[in-house]
C-alpha cells in the first residue's frame, strides 16, 4: 500500500526483490544502485543476513511523471530467504506494491525456484495479499552462464514452471552484466503504478 506523504508531496511505494538464495536479487539491486546512481537518494543499507544479504535503498524513477502533482519515490528491498527472518520479511512485505521475482536459470536450481515462488505466495497471503493480484514481474537471471557451457533451463521451460498460472511479464537477465535489470524494474514500476492507479482511481 503506497504511502502519501503530503508534507513532501510524494507518493512512496515499495518494490521487493524476491527469489531463491544466491539467485541474484542483491546483484540486481547492486547493479541498479551503481548504474542509476543519480536516481538514488541516500545510501544503500546492507545487512548481513544468513545465506544472503538484505539490501535497501530509495530510488527516484525518471520519466514516470508526477501523479496528481506528487513525485513518486520507490523503496527497493531484497528479502532474506531464510525462514527465520520472519520479522524482516514482515516489515518488508507488508504494504508491498510490486514484486520482482528473480529466478535462477541454472538447471540444478529448478526446484529451488518453484519452492521460493510458493514461499512468496504463502508470505504474501500471510499479509493479506494474493500473488495473483500483486503486481509481479519475473526475471530469469544468469542467462550469461550459457556462454560458459553451464546447463541452463530454457526460457520456455521456466515460463512453464513458474509463469503458467501467474501469466505475468518475464525477462531474461544477467544481473552481473546488467542485462535485463533495468527492463525488469521498469516493467515492475509500470505494473505497480497501473495497479495503484486502478486501486485509487487516479487515472486522469
Amino acid at each position: 500500500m503506497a504511502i502519501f506523504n503530503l508534507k513532501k508531496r510524494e507518493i512512496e511505494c515499495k518494490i521487493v526483490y524476491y527469489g531463491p538464495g544466491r539467485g541474484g536479487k542483491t546483484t540486481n539491486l547492486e547493479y541498479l544502485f551503481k548504474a542509476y546512481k543519480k536516481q538514488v537518494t541516500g545510501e544503500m543499507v546492507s545487512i548481513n543476513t544468513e545465506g544472503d544479504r538484505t539490501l535497501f535503498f530509495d530510488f527516484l524513477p525518471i520519466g514516470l511523471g508526477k501523479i496528481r502533482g506528487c513525485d513518486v519515490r520507490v523503496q527497493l528491498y531484497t528479502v532474506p530467504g531464510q525462514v527465520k527472518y520472519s520479522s524482516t520479511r514482515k516489515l518488508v512485505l507488508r504494504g508491498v506494491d510490486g514484486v520482482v521475482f528473480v529466478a535462477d536459470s541454472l538447471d540444478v536450481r529448478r526446484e529451488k525456484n518453484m519452492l521460493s515462488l510458493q514461499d512468496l505466495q504463502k508470505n504474501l497471503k500471510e499479509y493479506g495479499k494474493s500473488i495473483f493480484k500483486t503486481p509481479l514481474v519475473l526475471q530469469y537471471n544468469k542467462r550469461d552462464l550459457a556462454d560458459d557451457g553451464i546447463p541452463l533451463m530454457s526460457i520456455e521451460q521456466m515460463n512453464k514452471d513458474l509463469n503458467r498460472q501467474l501469466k505475468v511479464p518475464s525477462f531474461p537477465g544477467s544481473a552481473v552484466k546488467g542485462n535485463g535489470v533495468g527492463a525488469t524494474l521498469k516493467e515492475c514500476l509500470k505494473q505497480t503504478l497501473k495497479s495503484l492507479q486502478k486501486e485509487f482511481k487516479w487515472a486522469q
Partner: protein
Amino acid sequence: MNSSAKNVLTGDLKYLGLGDILQLIGANGSTGVLKLSCRFAPHPALLYFKDGNPVDARCGDLGGLDALYPLFGWTEGAFEFTQEAVHGQKVINKSRMGIILEGLKLKDDGKIEIIGPDSLLGVAKTTGFSGEEIPLVKGPLVDYMYVVDEEDFFDGEHIVEEGRHGNWMWVILEGVVEIAKETSAGTLPILRLGSGCFVGSLATFLVHGNIRAASVVAVGNVQLGVLDSQRLAQEYAGLPREFRHLLVSLDRRLKATTARVIATRTGKQLISPDLDAMTPFLPQRDAAEEILHVIHSGEVWVHRERPKPLTLARLGKGDYVGHLPFLHLRQEPEFAAVYADAELVTESVPVAPLKEAYEGMSSTFKNIVDNAAACVSVTTELLSAVSEQKGTLTTN
C-alpha cells in the same frame, strides 16, 4: 520535557511495531521524543528524533544503539510521540532504515530478548456462503516436479465418475472443476475446485481399487496434471503410521460432512444424536491447545453449538478428534463440540511427532493434505449455509 511539548501520536506496539513507527516518524520528518513502555520491561525507553532520524535512545542505564536495538523485541506495550525540540548530541549515526533492518535481523537471529506474552494464535479464515452458491476452493501454486503427464478436458466432460474404480490423482493446472454427488434427486453439485487443487481424495492412494466417492466434471475447458502416483505412494508409505491413520480419518470426516450436505439438500431425514443422553467429550471453545484423541471403540458426534446448533459429522473407531495446528477444519474445538456415547474408549495421541511428519512432507504432499482440510472446512460452512436455508436445524 518542556511546556511546548505536544503529544501527537500514541498507540499500541502490538498493532504498530517499532519498525513501522520509525518509518512513520521518518516519513514525516518529525523532531521529538518517542516513549515506549511495556509492563514486561523494567524501564520505559526514550528515543530522540531530529528531522525524522533517531539521534539517541535511553533505556535504563543503556544509551544509543545499545538501548535502541533491544526495543525491537518488545511485542507488547504502549508508545507515544511528543513533538518537541531535541537538544543534545547526535549519538546514533546509522541510517533509519539501516537501524530497522538490523534490529529486525537481530530479533530474528535470536540475539534480542522477546519481551511480552507469547501470542502466536492463528486466525481462522472465514468464508461466507449465500446458500445456493457453489463455493470455489482455490489451490496453491502447482509443484510441477510431481506432474508426469497432462490431460485436457472440455467443458462438461466427466473426469471422474462416482462409483467407478480409480486410483489416479490429478492437480488442476488451469480451469475449474465441479465435484458433484449422484442423488435420488439427480446430480447435485457440492464444490468447485480451482487451479492448484487436487482431483481424487486422499483415499486414492491409501486404498487399492478405490471407489470414487463423487463425480468430477469440467467447468469450461480444463487442463489437469497427472501426479506421479508412485512417488506419492512411496512418500505416503514412508510417513509414520499414526499420521497415515490421521489422513484416512480426515478423508472419512470429509465424506461424513459431505453426506450431511447432500441429505440436507435433498430433504432426507438426518440421523441426529440425542445429545442429552451423551456426555460432552470436548467442549466448543475458542483458545484451544493442541490435543488429539484416537477413538478405539464407541462413537462421537461433532456438533456445533454456536452460533446455531448443527451436527457436522459422526465419527467412530479409528477416527481422530481434537485440534491440530496445521489442519484448519472449522470443526472442533473452535467451531464445534464433541459428544461421546456410553461405549467411547479413546487414547490421547502425542501431537509433536505428527507436526514433525507434516513439516517434513514434500510441498505437493503438504498441498494435498491442506487441500483436503480446506475441503472439510468449506464443506462444513456449506452445510451450515444449506441448513440455515432449509430451516432444518438438526437438533430435535
